[in-house]
């Protein structure tokens, strides 16, 4: 992977820091339809993810809870705002695109467009060790969706 020179302000952008401070949907859901647990033993990031879906597999509510760094928490917060109201299939597609966006050697313009607001996490690529912070909650989402099948 071609890693550009890391810049702190690429990593800790204002929106990211704001979501870290005031994470959206940061709570537990009682008896959710779907649940998963995301844990990174290396740094201790640890989140529980809760989803409620209706009969059409539309995500009617989503929440996460736990502890972790600014990157993992803000990414989780933004993820919840993005997939609420989407179908599980759409959420999964976004997960796949974001995963490519964070880890592919060359990221196509189409992928960049598809991840939309998540483009703000592009700076995390400059800090390879932090990529898994951004993708942690998405792995949890993937696991939760897998369980629904």
């Amino acid at each position: 992977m071609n890693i550009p020179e890391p810049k702190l302000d690429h990593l800790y952008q204002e929106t990211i820091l704001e979501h870290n401070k005031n994470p959206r949907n940061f709570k537990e859901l009682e008896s959710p339809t779907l649940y998963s647990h995301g844990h990174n033993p290396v740094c201790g990031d640890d989140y529980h993810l809760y989803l409620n879906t209706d009969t059409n597999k539309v995500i009617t509510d989503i929440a996460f809870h736990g502890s972790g760094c600014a990157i993992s928490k803000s990414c989780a917060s933004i993820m919840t705002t993005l997939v609420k109201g989407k179908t599980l299939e759409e959420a999964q597609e976004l997960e796949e695109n974001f995963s490519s966006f964070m880890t592919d050697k060359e990221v196509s313009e189409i992928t960049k467009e598809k991840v939309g607001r998540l483009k703000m996490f592009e700076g995390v690529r400059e800090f390879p060790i932090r990529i898994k912070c951004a993708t942690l909650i998405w792995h949890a989402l993937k696991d939760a969706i897998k369980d629904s099948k």
Partner: protein
Amino acid sequence: MLTKDIINVEKIRKDFPVLSTTMHKHPLAYLDNAATTQKPLVVIDRINRFLKEEYATVSRGVYILSQNATQECHEVREKCQKFLNAEKLEEIIFVRGTTEAINLVAASYGRKFLKSGDEIIISEIEHHANIVPWKRLSDEKGLVLKVIPVNDEGELILEEYKKMLTEKTKLVAVGHISNALGTVHPIKQIIKWAHEVGAKVLIDGAQGAPHTKVDVQELDCDFYCFSGHKIYGPTGIGILYGKYDLLDSMDPYQGGGEMIELVTFEKITYAKPPSRFEAGTIAIAEIVGLGPALDYIEKIGLEKIAAYEDELLRVATEKLKEMDDITLIGTAKEKAGIISFEMDEVHPHDIGTILDQEGVAIRTGHHCAQPTMKRFGVPATARASFSFYNNQQDLEALFRGLDKVREVFK
């Protein structure tokens, strides 16, 4: 400010080439010494010369090159014996590191002598290397694993330990210095009490041997182990000390070359210690590199090293205590040069990334001590750990770096 006249730190720094490099355009402030230490030129040059001009197998070759390499390893074993003040040369076993040493004792001593219902005592703030082997052994043999609790300062609660000791206690395994908190445990007392009920004691000296003088005869411990790479030597080499009679009663750890006396397809008899525990070709170049590392620190003197590192800890602790948003994790009265902390509203991982950009290398995470983190109710900590080659500038860089963290997370 640091008291400067204990050692000549600027002269010492010249012996460690990496300390004059930069990290993200800042002078490197290397404060991750509890994870691994940097190497002085005498170690680098010795390994280099050995591999270039003197390398051969040991204990087997009849040719001069092999005889000399054998002699080199023999001399390092003697240095280790002297370093720990072991009674016999045969009490020094070459292993890969502290982790392997503990696994060896669990397998060769524990599996042979401990039986269902016997008890092992460890502490609440051990490194995983001093938890997992004992937990596995306990599960396998039906042993009871007991855990000495710690108080809020990170000190072992000795009264609780004393209560745990009974004739069922067969082994006590504790660290010398906690890698996560820096607490120096009262191992002499721990050993004495364990012996009173007839238990054997293993001391995990990974953080002890590099920072304080160890005398295994005075301590009267049954096993003591440390790693080469945390004591300014190479990775892949560590030392297990064990009392000779104990070692001689133990089964081999691995089977292979060098650990046997006689092999037929019907029967195998094993070599005496230390060979019995050194199956296969030992880490020849790494052993040779460990010699000058021990010489180097003995030349400075462990008393001076301990005094200077205490100074680094004192200055860092005083400064961090002045910072309202910093909480120290581990505030024992007896501490060695390790300082674990939390910053309000900022995860240790973010602290680590920002400090890295400022040229400061610290460790963030659970430090392979998840039960310790659980005890203090934190998922992770930021940890700065000191060596005698750290100076005032390294500390200033750490403090400046923390200001930078505040700036980013204002």
